């Protein structure tokens, strides 16, 4: 048994998600190799080699892998996955994009977004916006699995794995990169933040949404948002927390002007401590909050900022 993990990286930096996926791979048992593909990936490969529990870091460094487009990435993985029993990646936007393409090319199914491992072929995952947890067994020769990173603690960085360059170049005539429009969110990354301050429709406008910043800065928190806030343009799309956005589990989640629809709860209900600030005492968010404060957010937030 052995696992190949697709390493996620952006702008020349290793993403935090990989350390969590390695933890899942180690729960499976067997050897763990990482695959870093891109253009100019030396620094990422070196950082990946320091993660604990890794046997080897395989690199594929070529212009065709720049921007990690799904078509060439899937072709590359198909060319080097034959020796492995498991293929894992984070259930991030790039993992979600690439992994099912590999699975289909290999003629095997995928299990998405696992939150626990019962046995090397048996996994738990949420379905119906987290209203139920399914346990599935996978009897395919190659088990393709995406991992909910918030469900597995990151491994440490005391390793020194071997780095090996692969000489595999595929061609890509299907897709070309046009451009990125990256959101300029200050503060920590939503996926790995210890504290998240999240705003909903109750904020009322983009200007008002900045009311969250004061508290966020004092707490070193990342900003999150409900779908309603993103749809209304108060916050950028990558900040949406929920069933169809990001799934987070910080130590502290402060929901401000968010009603608590099941689709939102699906993305944050595993947070350690939940605070809800809402003027409607019947709002469903209070049902899962450890500390609910009924009140007008326009009074509560400035008061909270000054008390921190």
């Amino acid at each position: 048994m052995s696992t190949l993990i697709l390493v996620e990286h952006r702008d020349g930096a290793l993403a935090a998600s990989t350390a969590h996926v390695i933890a899942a791979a180690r729960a499976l048992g067997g050897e763990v190799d990482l695959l870093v593909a891109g253009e100019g990936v030396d620094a990422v490969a070196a950082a990946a080699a320091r993660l604990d529990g890794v046997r080897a870091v395989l690199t594929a460094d070529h212009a065709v892998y720049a921007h990690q487009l799904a078509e060439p990435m899937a072709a590359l993985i198909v060319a080097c996955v034959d020796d492995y029993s498991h293929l894992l990646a984070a259930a991030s936007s790039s993992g979600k994009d690439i992994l099912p393409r590999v699975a289909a090319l290999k003629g095997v199914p995928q299990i998405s977004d696992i939150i626990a491992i019962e046995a090397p072929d048996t996994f738990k995952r949420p379905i119906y916006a987290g209203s139920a947890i399914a346990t599935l067994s996978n009897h395919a020769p190659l088990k393709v699995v995406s991992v909910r990173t918030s469900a597995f603690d990151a491994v440490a960085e005391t390793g020194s794995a071997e780095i090996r360059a692969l000489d595999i170049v595929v061609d890509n005539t299907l897709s070309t990169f046009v451009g990125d429009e990256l959101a300029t969110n200050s503060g920590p990354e939503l996926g790995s933040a210890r504290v998240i301050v999240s705003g909903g429709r109750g904020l009322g406008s983009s200007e008002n949404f900045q009311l969250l910043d004061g508290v966020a800065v004092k707490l070193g928190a990342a900003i999150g948002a409900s779908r309603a806030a993103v749809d209304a343009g108060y916050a950028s799309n990558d900040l949406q927390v929920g069933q169809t956005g990001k799934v987070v589990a910080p130590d502290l989640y402060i929901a401000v002007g968010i009603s608590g629809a099941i689709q939102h709860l699906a993305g944050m209900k595993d947070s350690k401590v939940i605070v809800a600030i809402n003027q409607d005492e019947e709002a469903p968010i209070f049902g899962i909050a450890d500390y609910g404060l009924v009140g007008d957010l326009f009074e509560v937030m400035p008061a909270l900022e000054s008390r921190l």
Partner: protein
Amino acid sequence: MKVLVGVKRVIDYNVKVRVRPDQSDVDLTNTKMAMNPFCEIAVEEALRLKERGVASEIVAVSIGPKAAQEQLRTALALGADRAIHIESEERLDSLEVAQVLARIVAEEQPGLVILGKQAIDSDNNQTGQMLAALTGMGQGTFASRLEVTDEEVQVTREVDGGLRTLALRLPAVITTDLRLNEPRHARLPDIMKAKKKPIDSRGIDTVGLAANDYLRLERVETPAARQGGSKVASVDELVDKLKHEAKVL
């Protein structure tokens, strides 16, 4: 250009599911069902392409039980030209669904295929990517904007960190994200007219699917309920509790 859209029948997003006492599955008896919200967005995008003169014909396809024809009727009422129903009472995994869709793609030769990014029941987020792989097409997943020209489609995708734009050679597979458009509702006269539009319904046995037995559902459980519901009376009390009781500040 012909556009093929995937339509999945799922539980209505407002309904909360219950797990069966024997943990064999969720209980969907007498549950309100609807078109998957991301498929509504797919249908809407196809309609807009047709209104702009880019698409010439819209074909909606659904794989599922007989009742999935209700969702195909909805797609027809919204403006799809015709529908294909592949009847299956069996539960298929995303790979099998993609294999059936690939067969339809081979028959219909669409210029563009639009699916939802995920079905809100299984939350798999796989089918479009798998279909693209099986048909050798490029994929534009989690789309929030499309621009179709003669030979290519430019697709802006919602990704971690912001937005990314790709150009894909046609034919290609697109999967929809929430911000692609706001779907319209069907009007009553169109619902009546849709009853006359054709649905080509065939059994799953006619598509030559080599079903796999790779995935088995072992059990379905209700997650542990979170103990919430406590209130604090003031900002001072909140800060005090976060510091001294929860110890997160």
